């Protein structure tokens, strides 16, 4: 599996994502600067966490307008896998590659802690190595992860099995509708999630529950 990690000004989990990808795939991902509209031929594009453009105006808003995102959109439409983590998820909603929006946490504070997640959809290229209903623990670290969408969108997400991860009962850190932690697009090749799988690929630093996501991708993509 060939991969790329996009770097926006003030991305800050780009290295974490690159390290996890290299560790899991054995290959260094390409690092793509936001001002470049060219992305090499890869199987997976990762939009990492961070505070692109300082999270000013709205999280992900300015990044969604950068040259590289035009290419990401094209590739996504062609079926290339796109994974948006945290700020990456926010960018994906701002780009309308994923529906809905991420608002300020209901508690109005940044929150960093491990949370329990239920894997709701194990039938995707991102989650096939998990089992449906399995509980995993990933850390969250965000101030604006409160997923919101209109009722029709929420209904569609539920009906189409596009809610990949939900916060475990009683562990919703931000007030997200339907306890949504991560969603898929209609074609199921784009996943956005607030928790950080790349921070749980190493037992020494918090666990290994994130590895199966990368293993899923490797299995699905090759």
């Amino acid at each position, binding site marked *: 599996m060939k991969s790329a990690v996009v770097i926006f000004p003030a991305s800050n989990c780009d290295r974490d994502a690159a390290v996890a990808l290299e560790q899991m795939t054995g290959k260094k991902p390409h690092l793509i600067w936001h001002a470049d509209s060219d992305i090499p031929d890869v199987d997976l594009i990762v939009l990492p966490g961070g505070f692109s453009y300082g999270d000013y*105006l*709205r999280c992900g*808003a*300015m990044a969604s*307008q950068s040259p590289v995102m035009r290419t990401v959109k094209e590739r996504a439409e062609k079926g290339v896998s796109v994974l948006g983590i945290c700020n990456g998820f926010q960018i994906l*909603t*701002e780009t309308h590659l994923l*529906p*809905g*929006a991420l*608002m*300020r*946490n*209901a*508690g*109005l504070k940044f929150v960093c802690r491990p949370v329990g997640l239920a894997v709701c959809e194990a039938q995707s290229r991102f989650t096939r190595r998990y089992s449906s209903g399995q509980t995993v623990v990933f850390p969250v670290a965000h101030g604006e992860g*409160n997923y*919101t*969408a209109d009722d029709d969108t929420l209904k569609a997400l539920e009906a189409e099995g596009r809610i990949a991860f939900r916060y475990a009962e009683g562990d919703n850190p931000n*007030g997200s509708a339907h306890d949504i932690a991560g969603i898929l697009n209609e074609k199921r090749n784009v996943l956005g999630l607030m928790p950080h799988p790349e921070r749980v690929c190493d037992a020494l630093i918090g666990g290994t529950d994130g590895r199966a996501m990368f293993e899923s991708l490797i299995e699905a993509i090759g």
Partner: protein
Amino acid sequence: MKARVFIRLKNGVLDPQGKAIGKALTGLGFAGIGEVRQGKLIEIELDETDEAAAKTALTEMCEKLLANTVIERYEIELAK
């Protein structure tokens, strides 16, 4: 020309920040506080001198960047 852009959450979209402010005001002893909503005020200086052209440009700025129309609505005001 100077423009003011107001960005508000759409009706029906929950505004925890506004709620918290309302609660805090009541807590401080202010009586009769109803709904409180928080939005953004963006002030932009433009070289453009034609009102209609400015409005068109500002509308485009809102649609493209300033507002997230999934949850927000915007209003443009040109300073006289």
